């Protein structure tokens, strides 16, 4: 996927969000750092460019809510979560870059509930690579990318990674 394809996928998601949420002023896009936050910002910009109201955006860090604590030999940086409050009556759309096992999304839902009780939670992802380990599905998916479990999906976004927008599927390396 190149930059143009990523942009098309995001526009499609933005249109679907507008169609399915007549009350856009109650929508909050909650990005999972760091690329999910960037994608949430882009989606908000696209929605606004369609002549729609500006939706709320926030960031939801899932590190403290993961289910694999104590299994990793090193820990990455945790970021503060920021959500426009209160969440009561709102539709919170979790925004992630690559939707995979569903464990990150479960952790994100758990994190969101510690801020309040939104009317509903939905999920938007740029890429859905399959291999779910939990009963979770995406509401808005930019591209379905069939993968093998050992393969890697490599996503780069200009403002986060300093490289042009692109998605690669990296095949399993034979040892």
């Amino acid at each position, binding site marked *: 996927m190149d930059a143009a394809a990523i942009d098309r996928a995001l526009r499609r998601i933005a249109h679907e969000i507008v169609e399915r949420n007549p009350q856009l002023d109650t929508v909050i896009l909650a990005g999972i750092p760091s690329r999910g936050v960037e994608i949430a910002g882009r989606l908000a910009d696209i929605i606004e460019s369609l002549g729609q109201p500006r939706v709320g955006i926030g960031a939801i860090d899932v590190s403290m809510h993961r289910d694999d604590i*104590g299994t990793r*030999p090193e*820990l990455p940086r945790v970021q*503060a*979560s920021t959500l426009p409050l209160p969440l009561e009556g709102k539709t919170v759309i979790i925004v992630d870059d690559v939707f995979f096992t569903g464990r990150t999304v479960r952790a994100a839902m758990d994190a969101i509930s*510690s*801020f309040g009780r939104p009317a509903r939670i939905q999920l938007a992802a740029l890429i859905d690579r399959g291999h779910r380990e939990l009963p979770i599905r995406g509401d808005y998916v930019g591209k379905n990318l069939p993968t093998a479990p050992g393969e890697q999906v490599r996503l780069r976004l200009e403002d986060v990674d300093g490289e042009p927008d692109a998605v690669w599927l990296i095949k399993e390396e034979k040892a």
Partner: protein
Amino acid sequence: MRWQRKDLLGIRELSAEEIIFLLDTADAFKEVGTREIKKVPALRGKTLVNFFVEPSTRTRTSFEIAAIRLSADVINISASSSSLIKGETLKDTAKILEAYHADLIVLRHSSSGAPQFLAERLKSSVINAGDGAHEHPTQALLDLYTIRAHKGTVAGLHVAIIGDILFSRVARSNIFGLLKLGARVTLVGPSTLVPREFEKLGVTVTHKLDEVLETADVVNLLRIQHERQRKEYFPGIGEYVRLFGLTKERGKRLKPDCLIMHPGPINRGVEIDSELADGTQSVILEQVTNGLAVRMAVLYLCGGIAT
């Protein structure tokens, strides 16, 4: 970078990068304190033993609240309820803690090096909550965090640490942390409590408080530890206040944005004038709140990695 340590024994062995990483992580945990539900499942299923061989209320309570907010189960063992006073060695006590499957041990001990002794022998994470006159790393981290929160950065600041430096693990941990992050440090106190040897660490030593008042960005007042003072080191309360107390008159000479810090508990009217302790420049209560965030970060990082 990524965090890789199971133990926090002192500031001396940390890199500047690791200190910044801890402070950044504390920022994230400070946010948790603003949520409707101030509790995250990060250490769910883990057991933390607060093992305080030396008495302490605030540090123990701070660690306990931090652990509870991380969903860990907390057991408190204090000197009076521990069999150490019945003659059990630290090594035997360590084995008992391990047999209980304690995942994290927060240790306060009168002997320097006791946390390291445990850390080398146990799979559990060991967090130093103050050992002898050696280090008190979480106090230094919360001081650095508080300074950074107000000043934006620690680098380039002039920090004066005032009082009983010789016996102070808080001072030692602070000195290591401040220097690593690029601050200029001046130690102030009577020559018996602030010997010139400290200059080998890279700090300035002075025995005149008046010399630092106008240039300090932060004054950190250490508690006069009456219980540890021996007569030959200490000039007497009246003389101490006259020479080293932050009195109202001295307070007026501080820069308007100079932060006044104190690790507590405060001896009002001794290290610091009561009004100054409650004044607008004082961040003493913020230090307490920030201590929770910093300790949550330490417990999360050290207790959260695979061992």
